């Protein structure tokens, strides 16, 4: 009964999405407030309906209802509770339902939080949102119905793919989807602005929080995915330039560009056409990512099931939304008036440069990801584009971004002074050179690591130069400086912190060159030096688990002869699917990590062990968290909340006393 309710709610949600997609649009054409007022209510009810459907599927998983084909294929009654819960989206159907749930959630948020948005813009935005959710609900109901029954129900399920039985599954997809789908809001706002033909600085202000939210979650989602791959695949790598990873990186690059160009639009009323284009691009790339991952074009752990019908359907959605929005853009774009002008050397100029480099690097990732697919479709030749391709294209384009980041921050709006800006960055430059030299002396080869570490220090210190300039001044007392610091707009702090986060991640990446890798066969009692530590294999023993059998290697880590920690790398054999996964043993010491993986025990009692010492590796993910934190601080800036400007205007209109 609960399952039928969920299914029914999903159908109702589709019907409502169609209403939401049409009537408010008509209302905004005819300027009919009643029709336009339908949009927020429809969006909220649609969210409730999709939530009911999602709840019903979750219920089926929790109670191991094996009359549902989806539950049979992806669950098992002995599976731990957390994986029964996260297993809801650990499959194609469920993950699409999560996608739509988050889409509806954002729609409802816009409806609730957008009361200060002009009714016309709000209604059109939600109508576009209705088109998107309608298309995806139709996709779910026609090709990927999670509520399909299986009769007669089997006694036991097939279990979830063991590689997905990890806490990462509970966190990574929801975060990533909040990012992907968050860009649907900026997309809808852009499409609405084009439909209504009105785009001004105010528009950028409405869109700003949504871009930031999507960007924050996408940043965290990508970082989480990379950490998950790092500890679960057992190769010690955290980024493989795999098409699935690139699919999430492309919207991030476009979204980052959008975040910066929207600032120019908001502050200076310039770059309007470009900003609208980026808003369309960011979500188009999210859709492309969904297509690549979900259609089965790529084979990976993310493509849960391959079914040509689904691929064609998602491709149709892709063509409709990307083609439609670009056509709209081509039709309406020229109507937009160019705004404020600026000199090439200025804050705006730096942000344009940032946009150029970000979108171009995004394009190289696009080529590297899609070229093999296109070539195969056209000629039948199969090629693989590996990390070297991206090292030669993406990295050279990103280095100027790192150099320009601090520079852009200290340039003035409209017309900047390059020499003055460079002088203000002398401190950062000195720190970068000294720090790079110190690290090179401490860690040694390769030199490129020290160079990039120096660059990262330049980015980190440079991020705060502008703020320091605003706080400090000739001989101010600390209390005055503190007051000035707290009085600065939060968005200034957010920018500085997010930029510093980029530098922190870069430092972690730079330090990978100093890592140590040891591959060897070990017997219990053997010990080996890895970087500054010594690792001893104590014993190898079996350990039972709920739905797997585990072989655990107990290892002790010593520093200078003293035992400081233990790690337990293991291999898990999952009974239901008859397959093995590797769990790395990880321990963090002052930002570096000891990483151990074991393989099958050989007949002679030896076990093959892969050990790594990865100095500063934790900084890669800490940097991403700092970036997201900067975004959140910026989001919390009261001055930039929607509606503040209007309140300020109203206050100004009060008669002067």
């Amino acid at each position, binding site marked *: 009964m609960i399952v039928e309710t969920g299914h029914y709610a999903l159908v109702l949600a589709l019907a409502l999405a169609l209403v939401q997609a049409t009537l408010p649009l008509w209302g905004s054409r005819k300027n009919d407030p009643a029709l336009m007022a339908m949009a927020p209510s429809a969006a909220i009810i649609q969210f409730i309906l999709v939530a009911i459907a999602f709840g019903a599927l979750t219920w089926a998983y929790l109670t191991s209802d094996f009359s549902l084909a989806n539950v049979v294929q992806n669950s098992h009654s002995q599976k731990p509770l957390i994986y029964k819960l996260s297993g809801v989206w650990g499959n194609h159907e469920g993950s699409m339902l999560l996608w739509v749930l988050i889409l509806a959630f954002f729609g409802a948020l816009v409806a609730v939080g957008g009361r200060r948005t002009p009714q016309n813009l709000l209604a059109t935005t939600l109508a576009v949102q209705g088109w998107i959710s309608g298309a995806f609900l139709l996709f779910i109901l026609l090709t990927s119905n999670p509520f399909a029954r299986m009769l007669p129900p089997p006694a036991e399920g097939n279990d979830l793919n063991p590689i997905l039985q990890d806490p990462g599954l509970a966190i990574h997809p929801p975060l990533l989807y909040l990012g992907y789908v968050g860009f649907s809001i900026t997309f809808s706002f852009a499409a609405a602005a084009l439909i209504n033909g009105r785009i001004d600085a105010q528009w950028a202000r409405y869109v700003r929080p949504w871009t930031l939210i999507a960007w924050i979650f996408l940043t965290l989602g990508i970082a989480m995915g990379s950490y998950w791959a790092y500890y679960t*695949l*057992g190769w010690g790598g955290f980024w493989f330039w795999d098409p699935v990873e690139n699919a999430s990186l492309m919207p991030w690059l476009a979204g980052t560009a959008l975040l910066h160009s929207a600032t120019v639009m908001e502050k200076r009323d310039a770059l309007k056409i470009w900003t609208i284009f980026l808003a369309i691009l960011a979500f188009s790339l999210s859709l492309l990512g969904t297509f690549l991952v979900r259609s089965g074009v790529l084979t*990976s752990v993310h493509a849960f099931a391959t079914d040509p019908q689904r691929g064609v359907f998602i491709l149709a959605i892709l063509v409709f939304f990307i083609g439609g929005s670009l056509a709209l853009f081509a039709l309406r774009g020229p109507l937009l008036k160019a705004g404020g002008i600026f000199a*090439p050397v200025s804050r705006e100029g730096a942000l344009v440069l940032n946009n150029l480099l970000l979108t171009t690097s995004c394009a190289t990732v696009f080529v590297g990801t899609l070229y093999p697919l296109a070539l195969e479709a056209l000629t039948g030749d199969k090629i693989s584009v590996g990390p070297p391709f991206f090292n030669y294209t993406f990295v050279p384009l990103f280095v100027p971004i790192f150099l320009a980041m601090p520079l852009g921050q200290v340039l003035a709006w409209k017309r900047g002074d390059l020499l003055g800006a460079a002088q203000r960055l002398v401190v950062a430059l000195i720190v970068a050179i000294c720090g790079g030299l110190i690290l090179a002396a401490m860690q040694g080869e390769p030199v490129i690591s020290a160079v990039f570490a120096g660059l990262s220090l330049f980015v980190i210190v440079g991020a705060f130069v502008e703020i320091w300039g605003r706080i400090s001044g000739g001989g101010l007392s600390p209390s005055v400086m503190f007051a000035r610091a707290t009085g600065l707009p939060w968005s200034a702090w957010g920018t500085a912190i997010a930029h510093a986060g980029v530098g922190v991640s870069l430092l972690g990446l730079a330090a990978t060159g100093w890592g140590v890798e040891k591959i060897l066969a070990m017997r219990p009692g053997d010990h080996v030096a890895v970087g500054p530590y010594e690792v001893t294999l104590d014993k190898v023993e079996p350990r039972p688990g709920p739905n797997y059998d585990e072989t655990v290697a107990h290892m002790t880590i010593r520093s200078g002869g003293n035992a400081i920690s233990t790690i337990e790398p293991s291999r898990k054999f999952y009974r239901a699917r008859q*397959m093995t996964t590797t769990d790395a043993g990880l321990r963090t010491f002052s930002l570096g990590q000891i990483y151990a993986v074991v393989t099958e025990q050989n007949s002679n009692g030896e076990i093959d062990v892969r050990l790594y010492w990865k100095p500063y590796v934790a900084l890669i993910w800490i940097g991403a968290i700092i970036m997201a934190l900067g975004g959140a601080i910026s989001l919390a800036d009261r001055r930039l909340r929607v509606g503040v400007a209007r309140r300020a205007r109203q206050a100004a209109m009060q008669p002067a006393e």
Partner: protein
Amino acid sequence: MTRKQRRLILIGSALGVLFVAAGLTMFALRDNIVFFYSPAEIASKAPAPGTRMRLGGLIKQGSIVRGENRSVTFVVADAEREISVSYTGLLPDLFREGQGVVAEGVLVSPTSFRADSVLAKHDENYMPREVADALKKQGHWQPNEPKK
């Protein structure tokens, strides 16, 4: 500076960045892509020995021979041809006889291959797509092979 000059600088720098990116991409695509071959394709297309490539197929039953210091040799086969592969290093979890495999390395002679990496596969249903396609082409593909 006039508006026109500013626009020229903007467009000029945009074209400059795009030009650099296009150059880098062409360069990287020429030297850093690796073609995929099945054993039958190696026989028919006869790439020169020393060519870097990915080789994919099924690991022939009974062909895995482990040597000293994690060296291993095995035979990668499709319906028509076989190639013997030598490799030193750790093997992925799902490296088993009868399973699909993709090895990247250098072709030593038309019948032998030296791999420097053997790709990790995620689960037992995950047949490398290139291998599946190559087998399909030869009519030896059963999509739903029963599990052992």
